[in-house]
């Protein structure tokens, strides 16, 4: 399907613009931070959890198109945040952001976006943009916001075109922690917020942070673990020095192949030592690469909170074929045809049959492509944290 390139003529009230690398210009009203940012335009179909999405480091260097038209209804708070590092650089929404209404809100979404340095664009036909991404893939683009409406379209276009794109990009290093951290936070409960982690006498998980969501650590704590988070490029020796009972591989942005260059050797060595390992999203892909599988960029990533995943294989016993509704956010995936001997596919997407989980035969190592930590999204898959913590010690 051919899309008409939209006009360079700027509508009167346009204070924001999205310039796609192919020259398409989408006008709208800017909000949040001013200036411009470059990234890949993706979409997310979740109807709740915009703050979590915007702070998920897996969205680094991405501009999120929210398919649900009303974003910002529940304002912003300091709890529904998934990391303190860079997440999505901007977002595109259909409706102008309204004032908040929710008892947990501490401020308006628009101000929060500005404080976080993220650029928003409203007044866009987000459904048309989503269909475009579905049909022709996720484009690179620049999102820009200027309250006075002054834009240098040529410069923005040039920047979009010169941006190399996510393929081959190792973003994990950029969003990973710089220092080791003893994770102190517990699980969230209504009216009580986040509890404190009990650390005494718990099995020790060393979590490698490739751009992790905090809720993963909270879930590990809830499942009964003590967590130490380490930067993406932590060496095998430093990891082992922490005397882990198990190692967790986090989610993160970018091309798994690029991150794999330094991550895979460490994971391979851990596998050789029969270290219990659990990987989520990028971490799952790292595990796959370490076990000898390949990853590939998907035509259209999976981003939403309604994705069905089926448990496959005999090892599930009674719960074989059970379907979990999961939160997903990935543009790369393990190619199921590339799984070597000894790597078992444990989960598949019911939407397109793509790989959603693997386990290494004879080892205590497994990973899932989706986000069992939810936030945002359904909490059907907490059992994975329990399973992992159950393997330790």
């Amino acid at each position, binding site marked *: 399907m051919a*899309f*008409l*390139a*939209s006009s360079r003529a700027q509508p009167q*009230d346009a204070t924001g613009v999205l310039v796609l690398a192919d020259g*398409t210009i*989408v*006008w709208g009203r800017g909000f949040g931070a001013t200036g411009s940012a470059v990234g890949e335009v993706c*979409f997310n*179909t*979740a*109807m*709740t*959890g915009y*703050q*979590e999405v915007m702070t998920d480091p897996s969205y680094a260097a991405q501009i999120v198109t929210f*398919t*649900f*038209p*009303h974003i910002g*209804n*529940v304002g912003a708070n300091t*709890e*529904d945040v998934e990391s303190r590092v860079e997440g999505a650089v901007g977002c595109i929404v*259909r*409706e102008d952001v*309204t*004032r*908040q*209404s*929710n*008892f*947990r809100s501490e401020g308006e979404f628009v101000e929060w976006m500005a404080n976080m340095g993220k650029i928003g664009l409203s*007044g866009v*036909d*987000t*459904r*048309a*943009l*989503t*269909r*475009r991404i*579905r049909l022709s893939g996720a484009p690179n683009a620049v999102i820009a916001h200027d309250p006075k409406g002054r834009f240098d379209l040529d410069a923005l276009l040039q920047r979009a075109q010169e941006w190399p794109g996510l393929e081959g990009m190792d973003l994990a290093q950029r969003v990973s922690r710089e220092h080791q951290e003893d994770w102190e936070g517990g699980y969230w409960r*209504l*009216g009580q917020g986040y509890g404190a982690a009990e650390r005494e006498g718990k099995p020790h998980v060393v979590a490698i942070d490739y751009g992790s969501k905090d809720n993963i650590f909270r879930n590990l704590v809830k499942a009964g673990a003590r967590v130490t988070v380490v930067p993406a490029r932590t060496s095998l020796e430093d990891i082992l020095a922490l005397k882990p009972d198990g190692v967790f591989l986090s989610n993160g942005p970018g091309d798994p192949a690029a991150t794999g260059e330094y991550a895979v050797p460490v994971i391979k060595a851990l596998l050789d030592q029969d270290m219990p390992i659990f990987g989520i999203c990028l971490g799952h892909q790292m595990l796959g690469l370490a076990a000898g599988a390949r990853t590939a960029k998907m035509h259209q990533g999976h981003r*939403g*909170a*309604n994705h*069905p995943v089926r448990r496959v294989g005999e090892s599930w016993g009674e719960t074989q*074929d*059970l*379907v979990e*509704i999961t939160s997903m956010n990935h543009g790369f995936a393990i190619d199921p045809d590339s799984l070597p001997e000894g790597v078992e596919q444990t989960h598949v997407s*019911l*939407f397109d049959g793509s790989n959603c989980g693997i386990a290494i035969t004879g080892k205590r190592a497994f990973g899932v492509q989706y986000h069992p930590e939810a*936030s*945002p*999204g*359904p*909490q059907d898959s907490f059992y994975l944290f329990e399973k992992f913590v159950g393997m330790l010690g």
Partner: protein
Amino acid sequence: MPKRTDISSILVIGAGPIIIGQACEFDYSGTQAIKALKEDGYRVILVNSNPATIMTDPEFADATYVEPITPEIVAKIIAKEKPDAVLPTMGGQTALNCALKLEEMGVLAEHGVEMIGARADAIDKAENRQRFREAMDKIGLESARSGVAHTLAEAYEVLERTGLPSIIRPSFTLGGTGGGVAYNKAEFERIVKNGLDASPTTEVLIEESLLGWKEYEMEVVRDRNDNAIIICAIENVDPMGVHTGDSITVAPALTLTDKEYQIMRTASIEVLREIGVETGGSNVQFAVNPKDGRLIVIEMNPRVSRSSALASKATGFPIARVAAKLAVGYTLDEITNEITGATPASFEPTIDYVVTKIPRFAFEKFKGAEPTLSTAMKSVGEVMAIGRNFKESMQKALRGLETGLDGFNRVTELEGKSRDIITAALSKATPDRILNIAQAFREGFTVEEVQAITFYDPWFLRHIEEIVYEESMIGSEGLPNSADELRRLKAMGFSDRRLATLAVRSVGVAGGLAETQAKRSGLLHDALRAMAGATSEDEVRKLRQKLGVLPVYKRIDSCAAEFEAITPYMYSTYEAPSFGEPENEAWPSDREKVVILGGGPNRIGQGIEFDYCCVHACFALSEAGYETIMVNCNPETVSTDYDTSDRLYFEPLTAEDVLEILRVEHSKGKLKGVIVQFGGQTPLKLAGALEKAGIPILGTSPDAIDLAEDRERFAKLVNKLKLKQPDNGIAYSEDEALAVAHRIGYPVLLRPSYVLGGRAMEIVDGDAQLINYINTAVEVSGDSPVLVDQYLRDAVECDVDALCDGEQVVIAGVMQHIEEAGVHSGDSACSLPPYSLPQDIIDEMERQAVALATALKVRGLMNIQFAVKDGEVYLIEVNPRASRTVPFVAKASGSQIAKIAARVMAGEKLADLPKIRRDLDYVAVKEAVFPFARFPGSDPVLTPEMKSTGEVMGIDRDFATAYTKSQIAEGSVLPKSGTVFVSVKDSDKAAITASVQQLVDAGFQIIATGGTAQYLSEQGLPVERVNKVAEGRPHIVDKISDGEVALVFNTTEGWQSHKDSQSIRASALEMKVPYYTTAAASAAAAQAIVSVNADELEVRSLQDYYG
């Protein structure tokens, strides 16, 4: 796990007649279920007493029993058909209760019938308040502080824990019948008593009040593998305290963070697991404290419900179809999502639009009942609208309601009123509260103030405030002249008509002068238009078209565009031209197409019967090779199912919305025409606008329809054909009305010139009553006269349905009413074929029908009402369009008359289409079903004003048996013994004597008030005299209230005696004593009682009747 092969035949129990709380959403669910089961090769047996349903069409189930849904009758069907399983979750509370009873009676065990979809224990656990509460405690979910009471004394004990205000909910009742909110002890006592009465288990739940809390509903589907998904989260705009069926609701939930939403999601699934709903759809309701998010479980329905219909239409996920598949063993991942055709049903729909539902009420029909909303449902229908934002969705819903709104119309009663008056109006939960809120903003109230009074979430209030602000800007500046600005307004959902009204105000000409000029033409008008931008709906449309501001159509695809949708299910929106042209996903085909306009929200007088006709038009024209396009906005219906038509537009039925759809459909392929004659008054009203726009209208011309409705034009035709009408006249003032009445002679029938469903019609017997009517019931003026008709007292009324192709006329059926002329035809019982009319009278009616159809050049369906008095046939009314009787005639005769009519309208000849069966060796009786019990204070008497919500059919070898079945199906249990109370007007005394004699012979005791008692004893009948209410106590109402009366025959003449006897009818209604308010119906009931033994009734399927 594939489908089960150990069962091969399944009994589906329907929901019976349309009543408040149980409407055509169960035709939608039952029809989907039957289709789904048939697809898999099961033999399906259906029982449903409602002939107006699609599901009872003989081609759906293998054996269709239009029989009363009582455990006794269904047991007979089970004994005869020996099904392997029974599916009780598709027919609302009626089916669940019936199945539970069958289980309790041991019928299921005796015949080895398995209950699928929900086990008896799960149903009981969900519906039994105490067990439900214990189950919730077990999984750690909070319930409201509450207690169960079986007596008033127990109720007071509970009250100590809950405090006032408290909410009273009877167990096992529909839509919360008999429940309410009590603010003081007197009210508490009254509601508890009502609730104990209403509950079949004499049990009420008394709960702490959560008034003002936010209310949510989660639609959950679970399969036998324990896969569970949420189809939709529905947020009530009206906070707790108003029944969810009476609340304005939106989807998805709009004011929850993900953390709060996920708590609710996980909780809903846990509720299904704990209750033990193994397969199928359920709905779980929650209350959320807006201050701290405290979550409380309110209730769950272990079956498909009204909200599952809404959720299905809102998301495109067919819950009933999927639930039926799950019941026979499939798992969610084995079922395809038919909207995408590529993904499985095991996912959670996500939407990229906002859905708004607004209920429609009928308080005006029930004089004396207070129009306030509470926890007992009172609405009779609903409209759903879809927009890309809340404002658009809400304003589309308001105009789709068809209550005269174009959006947030001004509430003139509150204009300029004091803050106290406005505050009082806001504090009351009424059907118009949302309009009062908008008016309050116009009067200077702030969001915080309105929120404090109404407890509406500020998020919704701010949007309404913004709409009001935009209105005030248009009201001062006129319409914008730029495409961007006009599009911005249209994207907020403003209708062209509303914009015109607002623009005219901007001119600032005092005293309605601008409004008057706007309607005219000439220089002044042109000047006005230049200032305002536009002064009429047409001018706004022209302005829009000039500026290129046109709606586009987006698809409802269950996945927010993540996958391609193969099902053309669409809604309109005004979209920004983000990529050059605004993206339009209508993609009309190049086929030859017919557009069918539906009936909009259900209301009394226009309900499922018309949806039935529209659905049949779709089926028939599809079979004939046309592409069928449905436009409707009623989420409860089969017509708005995505697989009924080839293309579905879920849109309000206004000229603006329909013309825009036609513009798009016209742009490609060939538009054969539009059918406006099948959806009741709603589409007919659009005929003028369509004709003006040059759109071909199929079938009988709108001019012929107008001729039949225009008294003067019609009178000319009647004279030309030498037919006889009751004497009549038109009056423009009280004096003229008196003069006409005197010329004709009393009694006369009075009504306003514009009538829908017999609204504000009344029979008057003298000057005083006529004057009262003129002064209270109608506005009579030069513009709106009142019509005066000779009233043929005690005449027999008949309905004749006919088909005509412009040349040949075929009679489809002649129905004789049981109640005499003067009772609205929709409220009368009737018999097909006639049960007591001589053949020459029937022949004469048929002759007149042929003459009228030919003269009116009818192409399609026609309905004629006749009155027969003293051997003379009078023509009452002609409707050259589909009427309410069409499905009944079709079911009774086994002939698809709506389908045949649709094909005739598309140009085929009757000679080439299937013949109508007329030679029936059985009798079918239709009986009306009334909602009086829901409207305390209203008088349950039958009048020319229609009040019934639905109908049932009894079918058997003779009239008495068929009539008995119709009474059982309607819910009246005819007594076999006991005391009959008789009080009839003088003209009925002779007529009733034979019936009383029959009952005496059958062993009944007779009591009667003075005049009647005297007359009956003079005829030699044993009768005991009882006091009228005004004659001192104990009187008749005391006896009825004490349960001493088993049957009531009560007919009245004149106004005073009518008022005097209201308490008799009210007490009979309250005590569930069968009562008959006409002599003819009393006679039919007596005949049924003496000649039919209800225990010996036989059941027989339609397929068997049709041979």
